[in-house]
């Protein structure tokens, strides 16, 4: 496991996604409000680029004809077959135990800390007056 600096905090706006390549893997970095999440850019169903799907909300219901939105913007809908994945856990809505996308730990670190290392920031210059998204892969 190693930690990788993959984005400046201010380059991913809320609701947006930046796709990075770390250790040969494409990973989508999502921002929901001020929280960041990282998922592999590959749907466990048939291999679509999962992170290019839409961020939608959870939809729940106590009974027929009753609708409620839950967890705004925290479900990722695969662009191919519209399966929904929980952006926090990678679990699919329909088969949470057996179909899940790989997730990675994400932290926000100030540049001043990062400058001390030992982080891998192969492609991203680090400035001490910015905050950065760091994932563990």
């Amino acid at each position: 496991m190693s930690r990788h600096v993959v984005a400046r905090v201010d380059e991913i706006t809320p609701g947006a996604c930046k796709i990075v390549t770390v250790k040969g893997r494409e990973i989508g970095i999502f921002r929901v409000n001020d929280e960041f999440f990282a998922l592999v850019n590959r749907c466990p169903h048939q291999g679509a680029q999962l992170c290019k799907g839409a961020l939608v909300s959870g939809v729940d219901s106590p009974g027929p004809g009753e609708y409620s939105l839950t967890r705004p913007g925290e479900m990722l809908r695969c662009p191919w077959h519209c399966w929904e994945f929980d952006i926090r856990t990678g679990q699919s809505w329909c088969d949470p135990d057996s179909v899940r996308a790989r997730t990675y730990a994400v932290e926000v670190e100030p540049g001043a800390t990062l400058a001390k290392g030992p982080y891998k920031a192969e492609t991203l210059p680090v400035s001490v007056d910015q905050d950065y998204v760091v994932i563990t892969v």
Partner: protein
Amino acid sequence: MLPLGVRPIDCDVHVSLPDTRTLLPYLDEYWREHLIRRGIDRDSLELTSYPSNAPLTCRPDWRPSQGHLGSQFEQLRDHVLEPFQTQFAICNVLHGSQIMFSEDLSAAMCRAINDWIAAEFLDRDTRLRASIVVPLHSPELAAAEVERRATDRRFVQVLMLAMTEMPLGKRQHWPIYAAAERHDLPIGIHAGSSFRHPPSSLGWPSYYIEDYVSQAPGFSGVLNSLVAEGVFNRFPRLKVVLIESGVTWLPAHFWRIDKTWRAVRYETPWVKRRPSEIIREHVRLTVQPFDAPPTAAQVQMIIDEIGSDEMLLFSTDYPHWHFEGADAIPNGLPDECLSKMLVSNALATYPRLS
């Protein structure tokens, strides 16, 4: 052949009115005169889905030399109850009364049919049970008839048709389901249409084969509607019996509806489990016709794919013509499945049989 010594529960036998005049003594004085003035008593009001002369409508050796087929108790006794050693037989009447445009006339005639079958069949043999016939296009009056009939426990289910004005899951039908659930009555959905719409959404067909084969996709649509509209969420104790639906189309339907649910389940967020699981829990099917594949091994595969040995209910579908002699069981059914199908599945489905 049925295993020796087993007294099966036959979940679909047809009883028909000898003619519409038969109902006159069972109508109140207003409706009796109404029928006579309009000459309705002289119409057969036979459902188009089962024309008398269609070969499938009556097995040749069961076709009566005189009188309307399936209308005589003695024939039902001699053709079904005695040879099959039937424990119970559930009688289903299919008649134009169920689908009339006039809701009040429909309700009056359905009431009369229920009174008639109680007097002319149920009172004559303790092995007989019946489905409650209701005005299908008038859910409030249908529910009222269910309430009225529910005190007689020889009526064990409510009879509907697969293809009527609205898909059966629609909320307009829910008063019927509420009454049925309240009184431990499954909803029996029989093949057939009130022909408000073509039996296939492609338009009107030309030939009988098109109509009859189109029943199976009609039933698929019924299942889609019941699940998607949330009928089983709202009525969690409700059981539905597909009657004369055919059986072997079901696994492919499971695969398709489950796959599609994964993509669009957010439209119906109350559907929180795979539709196939919901259907396995709530829906049962009578086994004539089964639409069996050619080999026993293929039948076994279909049973495996259905994934439950509790869904199938024995039926002869008397007098409809699906098999010869007493050969009412598809070859290849595993023993455990067969045993449940003949008796215990019916007892679990119809609380009023116990």
